[in-house]
């Protein structure tokens, strides 16, 4: 293990150890900062009882659906807007108007339109992901070296072939940037939409635990959200490596 690795692992272990000991010696209250080991024990109990896996499953269902719908719409609209002038003109004012709105502010509207069920939450997540992916996809298309388009024309490619074989792969690195940002946004939005008007999901679990002042369960919720974030980052990195093998990576 390298020196740098040792420092990183050491930092985490030392802090956790200090935290554990401070709670055990009574210097920190379990109500505010439960010890790492008791959080772990609570997590294990909630996993065995099925409470935590079920909450994760309910939330993941909303996140994945919202993410996929939003990402697909964002990629398609972004490619079209980036490549076709009049489509960009038609979309531009709407993007400019809706992009700055915190997408959580749209949730009440979606509750009105789609009801208390999953749809309103999925819609909020989808819209949040859509705009991030859309904006990054447009940037990706615009960043393509115009000589590449010329070369494709010169080699005999039709407009559709240029779209498929030059614009799409050319924008792909930026599309993945959009997807990564979108995944983060999806987790934020699933938490926010699960605070109110629902009876299931990881956000609901966390918020209910807070209202009962069950700090251990709050921590379990926070840690689980963190794990979901890490898992989604890994998954997208893996997909990016698969989808863009030509990109030079430093590590």
């Amino acid at each position, binding site marked *: 293990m390298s020196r740098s690795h040792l420092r990183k692992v050491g930092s985490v272990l030392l802090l956790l150890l200090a935290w554990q000991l401070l709670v055990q010696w009574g210097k920190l209250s379990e109500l505010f900062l439960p010890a790492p080991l008791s959080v772990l024990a609570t997590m294990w109990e909630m996993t065995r009882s099925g409470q935590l896996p079920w909450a994760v499953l309910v939330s993941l269902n909303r996140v994945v659906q919202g993410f996929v719908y939003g990402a697909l719409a964002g990629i398609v609209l972004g490619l079209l807007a980036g490549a076709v002038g009049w489509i960009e003109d038609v979309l531009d004012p709407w993007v400019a108007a809706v992009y700055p709105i915190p997408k959580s502010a749209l949730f009440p509207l979606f509750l009105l339109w789609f009801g208390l069920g999953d749809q309103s939450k999925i819609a909020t997540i989808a819209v949040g992901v859509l705009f991030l992916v859309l904006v990054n996809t447009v940037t990706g298309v615009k960043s393509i*070296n115009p*000589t*590449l388009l*010329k*070369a*494709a*024309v*010169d*080699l*005999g*490619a*039709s407009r559709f*072939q240029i779209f498929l*074989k*030059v614009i799409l*792969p*050319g924008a*792909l690195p930026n599309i993945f940037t959009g997807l990564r940002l979108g995944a983060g946004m999806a987790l934020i939005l699933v938490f926010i939409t699960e605070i109110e008007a629902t009876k299931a999901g990881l956000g609901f679990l966390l918020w209910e635990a807070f209202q009962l002042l069950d700090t251990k369960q709050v921590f379990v919720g926070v840690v689980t959200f963190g794990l979901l974030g890490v898992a989604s980052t890994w998954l997208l990195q893996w997909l990016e490596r698969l989808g*863009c*093998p*030509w990109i*030079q990576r430093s590590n």
Partner: protein
Amino acid sequence: MILELRNVGKVWSIERTGERVVALESVSLDVAEGELLILLGPSGCGKSTLLQIIAGLEPLSSGEIRFPAAGAGNGKRTSMVFQDYALFPWRTVLGNVSFGPEVRGVARATRDANAHRLIELVNLKGFEHRYPHELSGGMRQRVALARALANDPKILLFDEPLAALDAQTRRVLQDELLRIWAETGKTFIYVTHSLTEAVLLGSRIVLMSASPGRVKRIIDVPLPRPRHLTGRAEADIVDRLDAELGDEFKRAMAT
């Protein structure tokens, strides 16, 4: 003749100011099949624009362009090799070289076999599955050449293809270009601003002057190959080009 230009003109209009800039004025030129024609001139003389017009990538504003001998065969009329290579970064060497045949509907086995043959021709055997960023500048330009050849064009157009390379690499690639020109028997039209490159490569040199871009003179280079810059006859032609174009280059620098 494989290509005839008659009074070709090109006018750019600058949208912001409404200004009209004459890039090319009344360019007439006959290109014989199999020759290596050099378009030589300072920046702003419209030599690259002329190449784009021949390639069909830019419309001409006036005049006429004809390909009298290009009717036969199923290849394209022209194919371009760009200065900055313009390789698709997401395609391997093989994928880049077979792009043209792929979009023109050639069956996979045929186009792959063809690409392998061309990759060998440009001395890149063993690099088929590399991405462009894993190659040196000289190797990238070889890929660009193989890719342009893959469509079996009658005329290959070169837009200052070696300008971005270091002197040694340029020298090696100049020799390779001559070898490939001789082996394929294709017509090359080659844009450069280097007097020595013009003399090393060209069968004929078209001297162009700037603002507006015009053909100033056409010089035959009846020297045998391989040519050497230290050679007496070569040096004489370089001197002559310098005498003809020296003022043009100075004028282009001043504007």
